């Protein structure tokens, strides 16, 4: 709540003409936005570009921020929409697993196996239907609550729960199919 109030103060300062208030919001959320966008695109340059676009769009449309939800969920939603628009307009072909599986990460056998497993999980995540992928990224990776995820995705909490569970279930199946064990 305190965090939400702080964000709203920055927004109000900006609307009152203090353009530097934007800097505080960007610095506060830049890493989280970049991480989400990277997990969506899996390309560093795209993620950098889309992170900047997300903030520009947010600030240009800041008058439309009604303060009913938190600034965090509002800007996450912009990031997701910006990434999805980019992905739809610029669909990359099948991503190779080389970088993550075969990898240039020499190490012990267990490290190699772990890298392989991560690669398959990542690929499995890419192959999930869009809503399931979003729910997993926002819930599991970003630690957003069901309510926050629902606000970002623009759907009900029930739908978020369903998408999340189907997504996680599918990822578990992928790990099992490949014969990997889950560390406990």
């Amino acid at each position, binding site marked *: 709540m305190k965090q939400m109030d702080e964000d709203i103060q920055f927004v109000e300062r900006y609307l009152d003409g203090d353009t530097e208030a934007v*800097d505080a919001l960007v610095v506060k959320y*830049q890493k989280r936005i970049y991480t989400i966008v990277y997990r969506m695109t899996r390309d560093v340059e795209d993620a950098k570009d889309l992170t900047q676009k997300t903030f*520009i769009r947010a600030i240009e449309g800041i008058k439309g921020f009604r303060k009913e939800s938190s600034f965090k969920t509002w800007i996450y939603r912009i990031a997701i929409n910006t990434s999805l628009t980019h992905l739809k307009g610029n669909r990359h072909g099948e991503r190779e697993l080389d970088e993550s599986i075969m990898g240039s990460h020499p190490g012990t056998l267990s490290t190699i196996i772990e890298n392989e497993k991560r690669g398959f999980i990542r690929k499995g995540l890419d192959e999930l239907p869009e809503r399931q992928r979003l729910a997993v990224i926002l819930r599991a990776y970003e630690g957003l609550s069901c309510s926050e995820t629902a606000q970002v995705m623009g759907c009900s909490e029930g739908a978020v729960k369903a998408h999340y569970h189907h997504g996680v279930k599918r990822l578990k199946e992928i790990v099992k199919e490949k014969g990997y064990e*889950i560390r406990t």
Partner: protein
Amino acid sequence: MRSGHEEIMELLPEYLKGSLPGELGKEVQAHLEGCEECRNEVSFLREIVDSEVPDPGDLFWQSLAWRVRLTVEEKKKEEKFPLGFLVRRLPVGAAIAVALLLTLISLYPFKDKALVQDPFFKDPLTASVSDYSDTSEKDIPLIAEEITVDESYLPRENYKDLSYHKEFASLSSGEMESLYEALKGDEQSGG
């Protein structure tokens, strides 16, 4: 325990992220000690979350805020003054326009406007490019004849009678000399 198994399951992503408030976090922790299914879920979530995100570097983080602010301010200026884009490029535009104008001037086929609006009139300045291939010898005497009857040389009313130039042409050199002497004498005597 206030929360049931299903509710705790829903809280696991936030628990892993450490974003649960203290009391709720402790409740989840206590549940995990006695629930294998939730422990497995936490383990799996750790597995999928445990993937690296490449760091774009300090330069990106340090410059992002001002790049965003700068871009937004630039766009605002353009909205306020839509022609700003053109004005900024005015020197370039003006240079291009001048160059274009000079090129057009240099390529324009300047000709002196014909003084006589007659399609048959051959302008002497363009005579070098005139085509006389359709002119035959028959046309030459015709032109000479037109000159002899030109009204600017002869009075209209009696030009046929005043054909003395033909008579002069028929005089011999001796006759011309005697005529000259006679006229000279008239002049001296005031005739």
